[in-house]
């Protein structure tokens, strides 16, 4: 890609990144949330890779890392849900943190935490899919 495209992609990527953070953290008070924000977050990386070419992020190393983030975030979601069995109303996925004032950024108990974890999970998954499709390598069976 030409220098103009690369430069614009870098600037755009930063903007998309910031916007994705906004969408993820405001998941409980505005339309959007973990999934939408996660897609944007993954998009900010994908734009960079598309503009700069494969060498830019050393893709094969990133693949291990995204898988790690993916497993870790799901694990945290599950454990957070499990912790609901011991706190507050004693139900799985219980929302036991203080609820706060509706409409505030810090409100709705556990929901923002889930939102953030889901955002990480979706971003990691989408980027993994993107990597799997770009650096496809032949695997030998048997």
């Amino acid at each position, binding site marked *: 890609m030409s220098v103009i495209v690369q430069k614009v992609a870098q600037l755009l990527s930063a903007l998309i990144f910031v916007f994705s953070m906004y969408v993820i953290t405001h998941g409980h008070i505005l339309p959007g949330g973990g999934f939408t924000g996660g897609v944007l977050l993954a998009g900010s990386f994908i734009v960079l890779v598309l503009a700069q070419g494969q060498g830019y992020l050393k893709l094969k190393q990133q693949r291990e890392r995204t898988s790690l983030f993916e497993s870790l975030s799901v694990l945290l979601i*599950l454990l957070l*849900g499990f912790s609901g069995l011991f706190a507050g109303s*004693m139900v799985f996925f*219980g929302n036991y943190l203080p609820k706060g004032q509706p409409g505030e950024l810090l409100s709705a108990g556990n929901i923002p935490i889930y939102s953030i974890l889901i955002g990480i999970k979706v971003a990691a998954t989408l980027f993994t899919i993107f990597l799997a499709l770009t650096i496809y390598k032949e695997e030998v069976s*048997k």
Partner: protein
Amino acid sequence: MENPVLIFFIFLPFLAAFLIPLLNLFWDQAKTIVLPLVSFVLLLLALLIVINPPQSTQYIPGGWYPVDNIPVGIHLVGDGLSRFMLLLINSIAFLCAIYAIPYLRLFTGQKYFYTLFFLQLAGLNGVVLAGDMFNLFVFMEVTAKASYALVAFGVRKTEIEASFKYQVMGGLATLFMLFGIAMLYWMTSTLNMADISVVLRNDHAGNTGAIRFTQLFLLAGVAIKAAMIPFHAWLPDAHSSAPSPVSAMLSGVVIKVLGVYVILRLFINVFAPSEFLSMVIAVLGGISMTAGVILAIGAWNLKRLLAYHSISQMGYVLMGIGIGMGVVAGGGSPEAVALTFTGALFHMINHAVFKGLLFLTAGSIEYSTDNLDLKKMGGLARYMPLTMVASFAASMAIAGIPPFNGFFSKFAIIVAAIQGGYHFRAALGLLVGILTLASFVKFQRYAFFGRPMPRLSLKHTPLLMKASMITMAVLCVVMSLLIFPEARAIFLDPAVNTLLESTDYVIKQL
């Protein structure tokens, strides 16, 4: 009200599925310990809730309790039928899991298997526990996604082709389901199954056209998943291409949960059983039963032969269910209905055990000789006596020879058909039984007896694979005991009662 055991059937497999990739980074062998351990714990939990049923049958995660008797949250429902299915799923999964550990030496990329296996297990448990339509759909998709990947696990030409076919057909099936669910939501403005049932019975009793339209879409989706004959094209490919323990899971559990269980839950508990639907299901079941076995006689690949028999045996189950629904809709006596449903459910668990065992023995033959073509086998009885015994037990069970479990369940279905006045279907059942026997005599004759093929070396069957096969072979005989009322009262009767008192489901869940 609360029964937190239910959530563990979904929580534990998901936890294990995502813990394994992390543990892999530090310790390579962790996965071979986590796999049998978690599946054994799940099996114990399932046995616990079947033998000692808890007071409350549902669990509501997140604490979203019903408001004015209108359900607002996600309900997990563990009634008789669900508990019965949980036991079936988790016992077969445990046996396949311990079989898979040595068997996977045939493959590269082993670490992905464990995660996918647990995702499939979580999806299956979720389908059985789901109390609302949309969760049913989501968990069906979780199961299906894991199954697609597992079918293509060997990444050879044919496996990827089979997986692609399976994905197109499976994707279409779930989309039909989603369309049906959308129609249901449009009509009733609710997703909870018990609530839908109430609204349909009260407000939409005369609205047969719309209900029938919805039912046909849902049935088309389920029929593809259950591989009834006009929709069966993906099954022989997918089930014969997957690694053997996965084939055992697919044939033994997945088509039953995604096919038969969903049919039972939707068309008996949610919709009232109707004459029209019972006719459709029984006729499709009869066709699958006959055509499946005829296709199987011509097959020479061992696993493909077994896959065709899965279609045929599922036909028995579906015919039993269709007859039962017909008797319910016709206002027959509860005893007659109970007999058909008992026969169908009994045949379903029997099929899970013996077809699982048959696929495992096929895997054992493949492991030792690296060959699945019946024409190139022969004289294996001398080299693999244990596999021979296990496979003989399973073959006799599927063919319906008396001391084995298959006989009693087929007998129950045929007797129920005669009692219901469906003499042609009963005769068809007998005929298919004879053809099944013929095709399994062929399998035994070509694989284990006859002239031994000259071969250089045979790999020794590992201990865990043997253990799993022996357990299943013993189960093939022991499960005959379910004909006694004492054993039936624990395992089968709660499930049958759920189906019998289809309105009871509504009363208990709301």
